[in-house]
């Protein structure tokens, strides 16, 4: 019998379950390596060469080089691991999270200051909230 995965219909959300974790093992382990200052330096010096030291797929490497966190997450990345890439780039968590919404940094920050994104319309796929696929990309720019 298949496992119960009631979280598959939450819009704009990927739950990091065993399947995602298996897919993203090397991508996430590469991210962990950036917790050492010397590895951050080596990565910054030659990103491609550093990535080639890891058993990641070519697409995972491309997603990292593009700093496309949504793409990384589709390929098994988890945000707590991917945050090490952002930290290496000198980005805050807010800049990282905002980068996945299609909004500019300012639009995202303003949304948070105004109370954040509403849950209304964003609980289940098929509603009309701003995180639904047909409302993408977000932002007014």
């Amino acid at each position, binding site marked *: 019998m298949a496992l119960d995965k*009631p*979280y598959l219909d*939450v*819009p*704009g*959300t*990927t*739950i*990091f*379950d*065993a399947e995602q*974790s298996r897919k*993203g*093992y090397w991508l*996430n*382990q590469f*991210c*962990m390596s*950036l*917790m*050492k*200052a010397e590895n*951050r330096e080596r990565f910054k010096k030659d990103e491609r060469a550093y990535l080639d030291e890891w058993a990641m797929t070519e697409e995972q490497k491309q997603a990292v080089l593009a700093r496309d966190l*949504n793409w990384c*997450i589709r390929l098994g990345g*988890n*945000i*707590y*691991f991917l*945050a*090490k890439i*952002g*930290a*290496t780039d000198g980005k*805050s*968590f*807010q800049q*990282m*999270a*905002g980068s*996945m*919404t*299609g909004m500019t940094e300012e639009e*995202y920050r303003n*949304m*948070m*200051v105004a*109370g*954040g*994104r*509403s*849950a209304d319309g*964003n*609980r*289940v796929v098929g509603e009309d909230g701003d*995180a639904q*696929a047909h409302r*993408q*990309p*977000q932002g007014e720019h």
Partner: protein
Amino acid sequence: MARITASVYTSHVPAIGAALDLGKTHEPYWQPVFKGYEFGQQWMKDHKPDVIFLVFNDHATAFSLDMIPTFAIGTAAEYQPADEGWGPRPVPKVIGHPELASHIAQSVIQQDFDLTIVNKMDVDHGLTVPLSLMCGPQDPVKGAWPCPVIPFAVNVVQYPVPSGQRCYNLGKAIAKAVASYDEDINVHIWGTGGMSHQLQGPRAGLINKDFDNAFLDKLIHDPEAAANISHIDYVREAGSEGIELVMWLIARGAMADAAGGPRPKAVQRFYHVPASNTAVGHLILENQ
């Protein structure tokens, strides 16, 4: 005999640590957040515990995908602040309490909870930000946290994470373990992380004030109801990282009323939006 006298609940947002470390606490954006902890800082001075049992989650710091313990108890003598990619936070190292930690590990495992015992780990913002919020800034070299800390890490990164009910029951087992420790010491139990937030994907930035406040109400007055909230409700209502709230139920389950004793007294309740991507929640409950 050791006893749990109080529980503390707080979010542990990394940006709060950065704001403290970079001296931004008086900026208009941060002022309301830190104002919410002024009471707690004074309360800590007036009610100094002998040990803090601190429930938090590791954010892919001590535990990579190589090893993912659901519940891990730190039994080491000390823990260094971790380098999460920005360099380590400039805060004092955390002194552990190996004797009580080992006693709790033995007792809780005998009550059928399978804990992972950790004798070496660095601690990330999940643990150090709550200490900073409740104890104020500390010199990383000359300073020290007010008492030993037992770190207790819960997996809320890879699914499935433990249920709220299991966390609540685990809190009961921890309270029993503490009560069977012979030394006469005063223990606080802290549940950290959480309130609504989502850090990933096009739904990033989700905040649900109604859910958060209902959770705070339930946690104070009807913890059994809070323990019954399902994973999918946390995800839909409070965001994918709002699931961290299950950790608050460990602290709540360790309060006297969960074992048939008197209801605790709420001496502080605070809620604010936003801090970076999240809502900030904070409670202090005292056993009567």
